[in-house]
């Protein structure tokens, strides 16, 4: 049996780490956030410059893990929650008010939530290959009216947050007509994927000329690859806003450090790190301080975001409509 010896080795390493005297702030974050290609490492370094502490990001699925752990969780702060889980998360009573002044937020919509603090955002959008599509659609009706041989890939709203955002977006724009619109769009949907990575991989591999992603996605290709052939199609009816959030865990054993981290989230040091590590807009940084490539991105005039009660109220119905329309 290898496992006990392997486990023992790993436990010993952790024990020696824990022996250090500095206080530890434990932050749960999604895997992409903690990865070396995400914002985690630079944020960890910048926060540790100011806090005389050890910031530890622990990767994984946030809400399932928190719900399983309950009040026994090791987390002091959770970062990377999405707007669609706030209702459920709030009802658990696991989170404490963030206590931050929200006047520095630069979101395209009003944000007054006292528990969940936005740290970045972008618009859900269809990203297309400019070498394959000359005139991008400027509305959902336009998208539906495109030739049937122009195919798109979307994510499944039952397994992907961006897929769910699209579902709510269409429902908000079309209301009772949503099911008919989905049915009309269906012939252009080449396939539906489990998550964003599969869909975006199909797009960059050239299987489809257009994919459901974010209006900030092209920034990566422009800034990191010098590739100007990816652009977001901007719709007149406005775009669903994708806002990512942090929250302080009520049972934290490091309340001061947790508070310090929450206020660090709104500070320029954190905010400036976001655009070119998370490839999204910072939540509390004036537009003139964004990297040029983000200032130049096409963006819609209107941001759409259903509040958590409204989203919860229509989600199941919208899902049923979607499934019926696309199962034909």
């Amino acid at each position, binding site marked *: *049996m*290898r*496992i006990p010896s*392997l*486990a023992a080795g*790993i*436990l010993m390493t*952790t024990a020696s780490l824990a022996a250090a005297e500095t206080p530890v702030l434990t932050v749960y974050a999604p*895997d*992409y956030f903690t*990865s*070396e*290609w*995400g914002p985690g490492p630079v944020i960890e370094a910048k926060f540790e410059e100011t806090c005389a502490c050890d910031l*530890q*990001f*622990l*990767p*994984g*699925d946030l*809400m*399932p*893990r928190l*719900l*399983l*752990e309950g009040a*026994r969780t090791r987390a002091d702060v959770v970062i990377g929650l999405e707007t669609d889980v706030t209702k*459920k998360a709030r009802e658990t009573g696991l989170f404490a008010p963030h206590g931050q002044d929200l006047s520095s937020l630069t979101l395209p919509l009003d944000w007054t939530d006292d528990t969940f603090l936005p740290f970045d955002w972008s618009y859900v959008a269809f990203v297309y290959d400019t070498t394959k599509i000359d005139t991008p659609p400027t509305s959902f009706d336009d998208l539906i009216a495109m030739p049937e041989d122009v*195919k798109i890939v979307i994510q*499944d709203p*039952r*397994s992907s947050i961006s897929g769910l955002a699209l579902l709510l977006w269409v429902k908000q724009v079309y209301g009772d007509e949503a099911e008919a619109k989905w049915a009309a769009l*269906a012939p252009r*949907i*080449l*396939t*539906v*994927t*489990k*998550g*964003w*990575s*599969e869909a*975006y*991989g*199909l797009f960059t*591999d*050239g*299987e*489809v000329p257009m994919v459901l992603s974010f209006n900030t*996605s092209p920034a*990566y*290709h422009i800034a*990191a690859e010098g590739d100007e052939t990816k652009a977001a199609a901007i719709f007149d009816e406005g775009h669903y806003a994708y806002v990512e959030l942090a929250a302080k865990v009520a049972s934290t054993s490091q309340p001061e450090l947790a508070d310090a981290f929450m206020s660090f989230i709104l500070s320029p040091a954190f905010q400036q790190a976001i655009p070119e590590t998370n*490839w999204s807009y910072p939540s509390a940084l004036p537009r003139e301080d964004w990297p040029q490539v983000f200032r130049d991105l096409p963006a819609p005039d209107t941001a759409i975001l259903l509040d958590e009660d409204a989203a919860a109220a229509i989600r199941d119905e919208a899902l049923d409509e*979607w*499934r019926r329309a*696309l*199962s*034909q």
Partner: protein
Amino acid sequence: MAPRAVAIIPATLVAGLVLAPLTAVLIRGGGPSALGPADWAALRFTLLQAVVSSALSVGLAIPVARALARRRFPGRSLLITLLGAPFILPVLVAVLGLLAVFGQNGWLSALLGVFGLPPVQVYGLHGVVLAHVFFNLPLATRLILQGWLSIPAERLRTAATLDLPPFAIFRLIEGPMLRHIAPGAALIVFTLCLGSFAVALTLGGGPASTTVELAIYQSFRFDFDLSHAATLATVQLALVAVSALLLLRLPLGEAMGAGLDRTLRRWDAETPRLRVLDAVWIALAATFLLLPLLAIALRGVPGLATLPASVWQAAGFSLAVALGSTALCLALALPLALGRGEPAALLGLAISPLVLGTGLFLLIQPHASPFTLALPVTALVNALMSLPFALRALRPEVQAITAQYGPLAQSLDLSPHAWTFRILLPRLRRPLGFSAGLAAALSMGDLGVIALFADPERATLPLQMYRLMQGYRMESAAAAALLLLVLSLGLFWIFDRGGRADADT
């Protein structure tokens, strides 16, 4: 020797490792819940695609395995190794490879375009089946090939002496072997396909291709409904249990009878017609299976130079996990193969990995940090997953060896030690090598249960590959996928080759 007793301990262990977490999730969720109409639709589709996929995978594997069994040609050994590759690929990589060939902008569509024909329409039930056959045809081929190679050479010699035509040989010798081997192979492919999720959805083209595993994921991630997730996982287990009862209780035909343990030579298959037929089968299978691999390799090469050191480091962790998982898998598989351990082993493949992970998390979390145990848990889950394959490869051979040498051993009053080390293990070399190779390669390419067990310091190679994708580094991700493919295949080849060192295959 008390093979039954030897098998009971690991069988109980495996069943416990699967059922205890499932029960933990059920209890935490507050007991089972009712299935809704969407669940029934998912169940119907899951069953349909799994039945079609497994029937087709095994049906096509029979002529391919027969062709490989009776032909010798340069590159045969390499081809057999490469045939292991689709099966061990991470789902995401395999899907992109398949679509590079069969997608609407894939190679096949481009070829059709040359002749003015429209692109391939791969998305739909046929796409799901295509992908599942891609994954499972090689596996079924290997299992059935083992069956062919276990036919005593004496029987074929006798058949040649009697100048039996190929059809008679099939009826008298190969048919009974297939009745013995094919149902088990079909069962394992069926079980694999039942758990399909991302492949079925992507190739299926939309929500009409919803599988039970997707419903489980949805319950877990979006509704936080553990009761429902556990109920669906139980239904999945029940389906496998019923299928196992049906398939493994079939009149299996007797094991092959005794031979003198020599390798296979076919006097009956030397006609030009059969030569051409076999060549066609081998060429078709090789093209179908190798083209997507080639696509994956071509996607990966440009990014190889850009791979950061952390990816190579991750490859090291993955190797460690793979070797640990292989050792664990064989330690469980050998005693299970001596008795009737197969139903217990199937549990490890039939259980939803998400529910298994959640249950393990619930059981471990009060006592130890799931973060630090991430790699050992990954190795454990991988070992459970590869156990049924190991048993499928080992069990028929153990039966044959026992039938053949058992009476001799008894008459010589051979000690259990001598029986195991002088008779059994040397003759199990081939299936042992194959099992170890499969277990190692499977583990290498598997993400484990990262939703709840992710190590903040030690990422595995598949995890780093996903992270590269999430960070938009598609070219590096493709290179990481290629690295993964090469390492998995390398591991598979080393073990499998070790097992075949003394064979002329």
